């Protein structure tokens, strides 16, 4: 495509992929191999020293996985991407590049429960200390800023509560303090929200969800915008700016410039911690992401109708869906998610914990499981499952109180989806 800037739908199908140069295979092949031959020892040395582009070992790079990485980098409008085994692995690697023991980061307290647990407990073992902040007022991040803070982390559309973050305002706070803004864009997908356009420096996904889209492949990805200057601010990012001992004194930022974060995250984080995306998962996720725009359109249409139905249902106390005009986050959703407010949201059942449990056990079309972003409609009662490691206080803060039910509305016939909820609510 000579002078046209390709549209999102075109990128979703083509970015990063081309017919195989040897065989002409049109679909990206599954390179199910652990290792790749060297031409000679000098070629091997160039690859190990990062002086040549090429494949060594599938823990670091794999041709199927790299097509997926470039695809997502293109869809997010980023410079480069690193795929990982899961969304949690993406978070681990991103922070591994940014943090030193004793460092701190600010995170929205409205996050996926698994992230709250990862940050609160496992990250502390590395000496990385999280400070949770109420994201509704972006200035809360400025008030909580500390000298040792190295990043701000938010979800564009928070799981499970349907909270929309004011990304541009939070990015201003981050940049005034000299730290990058990391946005987990899993729930929105790049079709609904493009955080880099609003000032995000790093975008993270659990690609297990809408990007892959069919509930068949674990995966994560880290996208670097390529705009953050790691050397200028008062805060230090030694993994990027200082000589790296395990690469004989290479300085990543000096050598790789606007893709230094992605290269360092791969060459050090992925190399040493090892949570690589499997080639087969990359293949399935590539097939999935081709239809992301079509799926998200239908997900959002269905979710809107289901939310409207529930908001009028006598057994439903409240619905937290940013697509509803009266919702607290409706204005932010119009700004950041103009094509739709996603298809994952929560509602409260009258009758609390017991009614919530009864509902998830009574559905027949919805699947009762701990995932989101599948073509299938999914339901869960967070307080009894995904969020059960949290304290009562954390449950309330995460929007996962005892009466809360989370839906991930699929792309089945919407009348069937509504009928299933209606019959299950009647049993509660």
């Amino acid at each position, binding site marked *: 495509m000579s002078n046209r800037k390709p549209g999102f739908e075109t990128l979703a199908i083509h970015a990063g992929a081309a017919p195989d140069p040897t065989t*002409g295979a049109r679909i990206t092949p599954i390179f199910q191999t652990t290792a790749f031959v060297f031409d000679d020892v000098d070629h091997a040395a160039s690859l190990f020293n*990062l002086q040549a582009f090429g494949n060594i070992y599938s823990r670091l790079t794999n041709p199927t996985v790299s097509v997926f990485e*470039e695809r997502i980098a293109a869809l997010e409008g980023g410079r480069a991407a690193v795929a990982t085994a899961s969304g949690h692995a993406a978070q681990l690697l991103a922070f591994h590049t940014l943090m030193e023991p004793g460092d701190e980061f600010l995170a929205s307290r409205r996050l996926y429960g698994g992230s709250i647990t990862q940050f609160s407990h496992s990250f502390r073992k590395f000496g990385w200390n999280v400070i949770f902040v109420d994201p509704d007022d972006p200035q809360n991040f400025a008030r909580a800023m500390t000298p040792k803070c190295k990043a701000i982390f938010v979800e564009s559309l928070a799981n499970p509560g349907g909270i929309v973050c004011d990304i541009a305002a939070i990015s201003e706070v981050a940049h005034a303090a000299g730290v990058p803004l990391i946005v987990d864009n899993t729930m929105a997908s790049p079709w609904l929200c493009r955080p880099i356009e609003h000032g995000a420096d790093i975008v993270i996904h659990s690609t297990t969800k809408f990007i892959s889209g069919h509930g068949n492949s674990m995966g994560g990805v880290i996208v670097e915008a390529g705009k953050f200057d790691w050397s200028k601010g008062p805060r230090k990012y030694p993994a990027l700016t200082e000589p790296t001992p395990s690469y004989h004194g290479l300085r990543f930022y000096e050598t790789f410039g606007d893709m230094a974060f992605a290269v360092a995250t791969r060459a050090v984080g992925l190399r040493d911690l090892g949570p690589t995306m499997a080639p087969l998962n990359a293949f399935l996720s590539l097939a999935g992401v081709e239809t992301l725009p079509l799926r998200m359109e239908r997900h959002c249409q269905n979710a809107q109708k289901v939310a409207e139905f529930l908001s009028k249902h006598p057994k439903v106390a409240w619905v937290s869906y940013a697509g509803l005009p009266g919702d607290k986050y409706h204005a932010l959703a119009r700004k950041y998610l103009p094509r739709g407010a996603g298809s994952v949201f929560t509602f409260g059942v009258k009758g609390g914990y017991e009614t919530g449990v009864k509902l998830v056990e009574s559905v027949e079309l919805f699947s009762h499981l701990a995932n989101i972003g599948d073509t299938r409609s999914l339901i869960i009662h967070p307080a009894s499952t995904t969020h059960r490691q949290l304290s009562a206080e954390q449950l309330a803060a995460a929007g996962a109180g005892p009466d809360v039910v989370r839906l991930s509305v699929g792309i089945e016939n919407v009348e069937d989806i509504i009928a299933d909820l209606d019959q299950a609510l009647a049993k509660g």
Partner: protein
Amino acid sequence: MNHDSYPDSYILQILREVRTIAMVGASPNWNRPSYFAMKYLQEKGYRVIPVNPAAAGETILGETCHASLKDIPVPVDMVDCFRNSAAIPPIAQEAIAIGAKVLWMQLGVRNDEAAARAEAAGLKVVMNRCPKIEFGRLSGEIGWMGVNTGVISSKRKKVVKS
């Protein structure tokens, strides 16, 4: 030439036509960016001749390092500058004087006046880019690192240089 946005065809033509590159500011230190670029370009079939007065007479990656462009005894197609933007004007002058066809300034390096003079003398100019990264981008190799090449094509990946 619009130096804020080069068409891929412009960069591709340069990378295809050039054979000999003088690399000003080439370092004998293996972990410096210039060394990375020199080694990569050599592997892609270019002859890269290092220019660095501090290392004149030394051998870098099998090539004798010269103190200045004028000391190079063979014709040079392209001058690649690993120097800061302010140091570019005299290098551009020398590039014109030795009959180079391309003046290339590395990532972060831009000098519009020197570029205009070189273009007036018939040279092609590229600024704020790295030939290694551009070669890797246009050949698709850099996509192996998950980098967004911006290339969309239903054809087999083109060979940049054979």
